């Protein structure tokens, strides 16, 4: 059998034990996103009240952008931080000498990403609604492909981050947090792609998350959901997914060949 749900569930169980045993772990999932939400929420209120600036009501896209960005970020963190947890606790070798395929290991970390996104999204949605009157559900049916595309892209960035940490060791562990922010300026999270210099715009459009943020702004401005763009995002995600899988597999082969896997695991 090439893939075992049983193995994936056993790996996920470890993270469930970890999070339920240490409630302080939830702080990471709740505290930072809430801080971001408060900052962007109050900025939005300030801008809306600044009549002279004539900001439209759709300025709430700042809150939407922040929440959707967090979906991508938490999804990426689910993959990368789960790997780092195994490195930090010197458990990685135990996992790699157990009957676990690398695809099962990655799938388990992706599922952890889903759980992390779920917790953060619920909290942010409720607080944004109560504090700022921003209702994520206003995005309508488009919310499903929005979240799906961001989650997928987060997984793929997580795989790339993990592959880089495997290759460069714990010295590179800050990449687990940094990788998503490499692309954030180009992803049109808080401003449209048209703001970017012309030569950066093709790069922005090659990111599967860009149509999501552009689409969110369109919907909040009262326009129809850009379903065509969301389909393109899905296609882009397929390409990014294939590249991330190849990159991860190539790096895993490399670290097995050079002995770096053992070094990372026993540092």
């Amino acid at each position, binding site marked *: 059998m090439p893939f075992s749900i*049983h193995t994936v569930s056993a790996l996920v169980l*470890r993270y469930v034990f970890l999070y339920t045993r240490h409630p302080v772990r939830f702080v990471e999932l709740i505290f930072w996103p809430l801080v971001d939400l408060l900052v962007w929420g109050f900025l939005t209120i300030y801008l809306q009240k600044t009549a002279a600036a004539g900001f439209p009501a759709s300025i709430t896209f700042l809150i939407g952008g922040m929440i959707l960005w967090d979906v991508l970020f938490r999804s990426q963190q689910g993959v990368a931080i789960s790997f780092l947890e195994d490195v930090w606790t010197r458990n990685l070798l135990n996992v790699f*000498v*157990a009957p676990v395929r690398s695809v099962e290991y990655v799938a388990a970390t992706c599922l952890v990403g889903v759980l992390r996104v779920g917790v953060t999204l619920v909290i942010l949605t409720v607080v944004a609604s109560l504090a700022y009157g921003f209702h994520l559900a206003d995005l309508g049916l488009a919310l499903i492909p929005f979240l799906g595309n961001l989650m997928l892209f987060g997984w793929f960035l997580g795989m790339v981050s993990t592959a880089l940490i495997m290759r460069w060791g714990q010295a590179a562990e800050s990449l687990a947090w940094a990788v998503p922010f490499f692309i954030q300026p180009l992803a049109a999270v808080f401003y449209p792609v048209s703001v970017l210099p012309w030569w950066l715009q093709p790069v922005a459009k090659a990111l599967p998350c860009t149509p999501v943020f552009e689409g969110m702004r369109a919907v909040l401005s009262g326009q129809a959901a850009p379903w065509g763009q969301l389909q393109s995002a899905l296609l882009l995600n397929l390409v990014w997914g294939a590249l991330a899988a190849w990159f991860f597999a190539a790096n895993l082969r490399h670290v097995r060949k*050079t*002995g770096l*896997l053992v070094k990372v*695991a026993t540092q």
Partner: protein
Amino acid sequence: MPPATPILEADRLAKVFGEFTALDGLSFTVAEGESLGLLGVNGAGKTTAMNLLLGLTTPTSGTVRIFGLDLWKHRIEILRQVNFSSAYTALPSNLLVWQNLTVFARLYRVPRPKQRIDELLELLDISHLRKSVTGTLSAGESTRVNLAKALLNRPRLLLLDEPTASLDPDIADRVRKLLRHLQQETGLSILYTSHNMRDIEEVCDRLVFLHGGKVLAEGTPGEVKTRFNQASLEDFFIGVARGEIDAIGLK
């Protein structure tokens, strides 16, 4: 008596890291129910060999067959019947002992995991640690919990990397006796690396002594001592480490 079936066969294993040759054509076998010690001074190639046998590192050349199957073609199937414990790895320190063992019992698809965990905790005399936080255990307790993890799936082949390192003589003695007992009771095969020559003499039926990535000596502890005219394995080890003994014998 016919020779026992090899459960592990390493054939001309070589591993080169850049300019450095860590293993240079290492061949040996471990028979069913046999306990083999892999010895050598630091840098001799023991850890590299162990990592190759576990599939953590790929060889530059050579093959590993376990249970008659090629390791790289049947890795998952093989790993289900193998287990490993090392002084240099740990179970996640932030989980309780039973949580860690439950996760690994599920990974190894152990039937009736709770019962098996209880059995092993009792066997290793650590039932009282069931609800302890793994990171708070002493070195001796940690070693026994790691051994419990390594025995969960009733492995046919157990790879142990310096399992008694950092243990006091009392606990180390208990671990050695336990391993011997398990081997006699279950027919478990063991590949054992250690710097503690007493471990090797007490636990291993046979040893392979590596030096510079090659086999320097092979045989029972008694045979090796006799061949190199040494009073003890420790003297032999020190002689090799200080360059006073080579493959021919005393210089």
